[in-house]
């Protein structure tokens, strides 16, 4: 299953521009789920941008929830709120998304990918989300889903000249889940527009070998969600305390000059502020590449 060479060219075309979080050969960014204390809402978007700058990040995977309005309110049923959001997505103007993008552009932050929870989406909403991602400057969309949904969404990204990310969790029980090398290969076989968004933590917790996966399938990988966890469905840990080979991964990307974005992400607990924790994680990575 040598998928690498077949897709290497388009992936390189989607490689990000280098910016301030390009460190010694590796482009870093942030999965802003890291700011656990900050509700992912449009109202908090300015604070998100401020923190990204504080953490010296020049790239981000932006969740749609930071962008899209909420329609839940007193007297509005969940079904009504969902329908209003659906209609809003279909009606949203390019100017709206350009204005959001401008907020990030103004401080030198590149929106690498657009993370959307596609649960319950109509085909028209799926297309609208890729249009939105494109206007935000993203190279592709990422979401958490299984192989069944992968079959459904396989044709969408290519219509918009983007990639669709296959993102794994550590579920070895559900045969539909993306969790192992085998499941990724099944997903990648469904469309040339699929790219791996490899979650290093979950892949490690699912007893996968990240270095082996990178060496064999690097040409299919758009980005990493970079964090640490223990094997055997173990817990998330601060960088360096789990089983994920973070240092070796970063050096492998640098030494091979692979255009794979390393998006810092953590789910481990901390009593420190999230900005401080991200700073420590980023420092760990910088030292690995020094």
């Amino acid at each position: 299953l040598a998928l690498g060479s077949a897709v290497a060219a388009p992936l390189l075309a989607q490689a990000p521009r280098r910016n301030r979080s390009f460190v010694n050969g590796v482009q870093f960014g942030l999965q802003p789920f890291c700011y656990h204390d900050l509700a992912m809402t449009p109202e908090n978007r300015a604070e998100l941008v401020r923190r990204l700058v504080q953490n010296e990040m020049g790239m981000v995977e932006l969740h749609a929830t930071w962008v899209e309005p909420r329609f839940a309110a007193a007297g509005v049923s969940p079904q009504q709120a969902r329908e209003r959001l659906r209609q809003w997505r279909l009606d949203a103007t390019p100017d709206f998304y350009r204005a959001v993008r401008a907020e990030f552009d103004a401080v030198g932050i590149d929106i690498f990918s657009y993370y959307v929870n596609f649960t319950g989406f109509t085909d028209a909403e799926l297309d609208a989300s890729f249009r939105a991602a494109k206007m935000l400057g993203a190279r592709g969309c990422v979401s958490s889903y299984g192989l069944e949904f992968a079959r459904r969404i396989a044709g969408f990204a290519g219509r918009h000249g983007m990639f669709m990310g296959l993102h794994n969790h550590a579920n070895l029980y559900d045969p539909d889940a993306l969790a192992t090398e085998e499941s990724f290969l099944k997903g990648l076989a469904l469309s040339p527009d699929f790219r791996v968004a490899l979650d290093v933590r979950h892949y490690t917790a699912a007893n996968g070998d990240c270095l082996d996966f990178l060496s064999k399938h690097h040409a299919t990988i758009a980005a990493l969600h970079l964090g640490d966890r223990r094997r055997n469905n173990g817990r998330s840990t601060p960088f360096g305390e789990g089983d994920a080979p973070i240092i070796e991964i970063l050096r492998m990307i640098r030494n091979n000059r692979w255009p794979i974005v390393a998006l810092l992400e953590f789910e481990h607990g901390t009593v420190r502020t999230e900005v401080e924790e991200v700073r420590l994680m980023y420092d760990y990575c910088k030292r690995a590449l020094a």
Partner: protein
Amino acid sequence: VRVAASAACVLLLAVPAGAQRAPDPQYDIAYIGPRLADPVMQQAKETYVVMGCAYCHGIDLTPRGEAPDLKRSPIVTTDVNGNRIVPLLRAGVPNTLKLSPMPQYSDLSERQLASIVRWIHYARQREGQQSQATP
């Protein structure tokens, strides 16, 4: 040391009255809340947070994402001194159709597991008292 302490005193005295102290990056008071008077319970809360429980289940047991609500979980409501929670923490919940199975915490000490159980019961009880106090 004395010179450093003197310098610190001068700096403290130089802070205008009423000025806010910079937030401590080593303790996120806005997220975790003020330190509790009871050091045992404070340690229980910090263990619950640091081991990652709060990430899914919330510090005050308000869950997010796929995580179950520990305020209403039958495992929690029928637990006595960790007899139901601790075995679940040790094993995790790998056999699930949820996207992200609950991790296992078999590497934690008895003391750390007991701290997590202590915080869950305390937070649940506190939440119950607050609900009753709200008209």
